[in-house]
């Protein structure tokens, strides 16, 4: 069954994807020829899931990814990462109308996509480096909880049920890192208007909670969704800087950046057709974030803390007319703890508070959300079997997800994985909106 599904999904689309990959690698062959060391990792991944409520097979996605590192000289290196994906209609590969022309997937057919994940060249000497190309700027010290880590757009096509959280989208730009004494300065400039990728309408993780839809009940009201043109490189760019310094036994950093928000606000388009569903536009307005992070090792624990202040957070509000918006103040704080527990267990706990100043505004969400994440994991069977369980939830909304997972390293190259995403909560809450999608999933990844 799996083979036939895979064949059906891939055969008609795999040829163009392979052709583009080959072209891409041939174009980099000049680099490879000049490099003193080239290493490539290939990864083939297939995953599917069945619904826990009705046992339907509702998710099936195949991907082929490569990562090549070129060591050109003592000071120069380059990196190229590409990913081809194949999926059915119900799964979707995520929206692409939020991409700038430069960052758009190289192949963007309905069931097939080929995307350049990273493509950059890097110069470094001692503690100084300059990176030019398609890259990410991963700031922040917490795990998956985005307090200050909001520089990059992310993929939301699978909500937050990804192997790595957040799953960043690289953009074209430049990054300069240097160290002067004990001060580390990291400056980044993404000259690329690409914004966060959403699930396509009708797919498993298309957002329906009214806090994300500007108050529109998209499950009962037909809407057409459009996005802004993202090709205004300068006006839609993101730029920022971070300064870090040791403090006590830990490290403290202060950062500031300005760029498009990771979440959109919705507005009515200026043209509406009679007898057609209303058309709403997703706007990713620019905002400024000021933040600070601190992490410190204390024996067998690591403590992490982040604080962010956004003075001009764009949000949708409830008003006299639909889809009104306003700018307000937003404060986010997060605390995390890693604990190397007895008997080889590893425990991670994080608490985040997300406050929106709703004074004089009718908010579509609670003014304060309290988010909790708990994770425990341990290796068994000669290190081949990893058991991991995590609980993610919003305490004030009483919604969340429980995610037990087993990862078995069948050989050094083949990993088999299985887990459950069991969602709960009110159907209009962050996690609860997907509770009908609770699932049992399987994945096989071959890396060589």
């Amino acid at each position, binding site marked *: 069954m799996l083979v036939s599904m895979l064949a059906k999904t891939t055969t008609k689309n795999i040829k163009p994807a392979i052709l583009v990959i080959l072209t891409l690698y041939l174009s980099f062959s000049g680099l490879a020829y000049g490099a003193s060391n080239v290493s490539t990792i290939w990864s083939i991944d297939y995953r599917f899931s069945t619904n826990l409520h009705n046992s339907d097979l509702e998710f099936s996605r195949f991907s082929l990814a490569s990562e090549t590192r070129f060591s050109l000289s003592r000071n120069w290196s380059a990196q190229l990462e590409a990913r081809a994906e194949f999926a059915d209609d119900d799964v979707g590969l995520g929206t692409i109308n939020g991409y700038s022309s430069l960052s758009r997937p190289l192949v963007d057919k309905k069931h097939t996509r080929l995307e350049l994940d990273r493509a950059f060249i890097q110069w470094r000497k001692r503690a100084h480096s300059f990176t030019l190309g398609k890259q990410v700027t991963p700031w922040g010290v917490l795990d998956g909880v985005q307090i200050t880590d909001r520089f990059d757009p992310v993929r939301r096509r699978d909500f937050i049920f990804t192997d790595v959280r957040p799953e960043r989208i690289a953009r074209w730009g430049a990054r300069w890192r240097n160290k002067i004494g004990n001060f580390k300065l990291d400056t980044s400039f993404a000259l690329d208007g690409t914004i966060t990728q959403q699930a396509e309408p009708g797919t498993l993780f298309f957002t329906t909670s009214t806090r994300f839809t500007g108050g529109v009940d998209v499950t009962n009201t037909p809407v057409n969704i459009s996005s802004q043109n993202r090709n205004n490189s300068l006006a839609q760019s993101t730029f920022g800087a971070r300064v870090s310094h040791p403090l006590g036994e830990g490290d403290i950093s202060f950062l500031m950046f300005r760029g498009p928000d990771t979440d959109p606000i919705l507005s009515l388009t200026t043209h509406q057709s009679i007898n057609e569903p209303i058309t709403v536009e997703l706007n990713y307005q620019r905002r400024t974030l000021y933040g600070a992070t601190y992490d410190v090792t204390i024996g067998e624990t690591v403590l992490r803390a982040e604080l962010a202040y956004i003075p001009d957070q764009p949000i949708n509000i409830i008003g006299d007319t639909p889809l009104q918006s306003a700018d307000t103040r937003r404060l986010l704080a997060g605390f995390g703890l890693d604990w190397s527990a007895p008997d*080889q267990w590893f425990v991670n706990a994080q608490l985040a508070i997300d406050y929106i100043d709703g004074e004089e505004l009718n908010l579509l969400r609670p003014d304060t959300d309290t988010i909790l994440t708990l994770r425990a994991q341990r290796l068994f069977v000669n290190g081949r079997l990893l058991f991991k369980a995590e609980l993610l939830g919003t305490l004030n909304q009483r919604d969340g997800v429980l995610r037990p997972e087993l990862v078995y390293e069948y050989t050094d190259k083949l990993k088999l994985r299985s887990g459950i995403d069991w969602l709960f909560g009110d159907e209009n809450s962050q996690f609860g909106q997907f509770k009908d999608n609770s699932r049992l999933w399987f994945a096989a990844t071959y890396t060589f």
Partner: protein
Amino acid sequence: MKYFYLYINISLLGLFLTAAQASEPATSLSPLDVAKNVVNRSASKARIGYMHFIMRNKSGSERKRSALLVHSQEPAHTKIGIYFTKPAGLQNTSFLSQDNSDSQDQNWLYLPATDRVRKLPASSRGDYFMGTDLSYGDIKENFKFALEDWDFSLAEQQIEGDKSYYILQGTPKNEDIKQELGYASFTSKIDAQTWFPVNIKYTDIYNAPLKEISILALDMIAKTWIATHFSVFNSQLSHQTEIVLSDMQYLPNLPSNILTADELAYGAPLMLLNEGE
């Protein structure tokens, strides 16, 4: 003829002195002297090379890992950088451990998928090192026995062919050290010429046999003996780790920024391999 007798006498005197010198360690060294000779064994300040380890469990299943290893030892701190090269699923993952004598120990991990260098909880000396049968303490001590941790005694010396071996035994100086190390005692056979252990047998904190480290090959690199092939067998788990070091080089000028957390994200410092001796 008298020159012939003189030659014989000088030769006999030489032989006598050589014999006396060879038997000297057996009679004049205390347990602490032997331990000091092991501790004071020459160690290179910094070295680089590939580390290949095979982990076998009792059913015979094997897991193989290869990594570039950069090791730096200074009076105040020991730094170990491990940059995985195989298998492909682990490639570009790197780990840095910094043991400080005057401040908190620090560990960092770089996972390419997350694009971030992450601070990890400091490991206790008794914790196992990355799924191997070696503890962090074993790695840090580098086949030596810290004088501040152990009380020493000597068993009967062994002579095998033209080689003599000390049998050094140790027990932790107090309960806290025993708990931290995870060992109640060790017994080690030590080569009196290199002051390198040939094997080390440890018992767990309840004094039951725990594991044996066997040194299978030594190489002299920049006037320092380095164990380039050794195995660790945990008898309680029937689990074995075999480690082979290849292309080991002494690094006389290790750049100060290489073994730092920020550098982990840039990948293995392969260029250093061309600069070693």
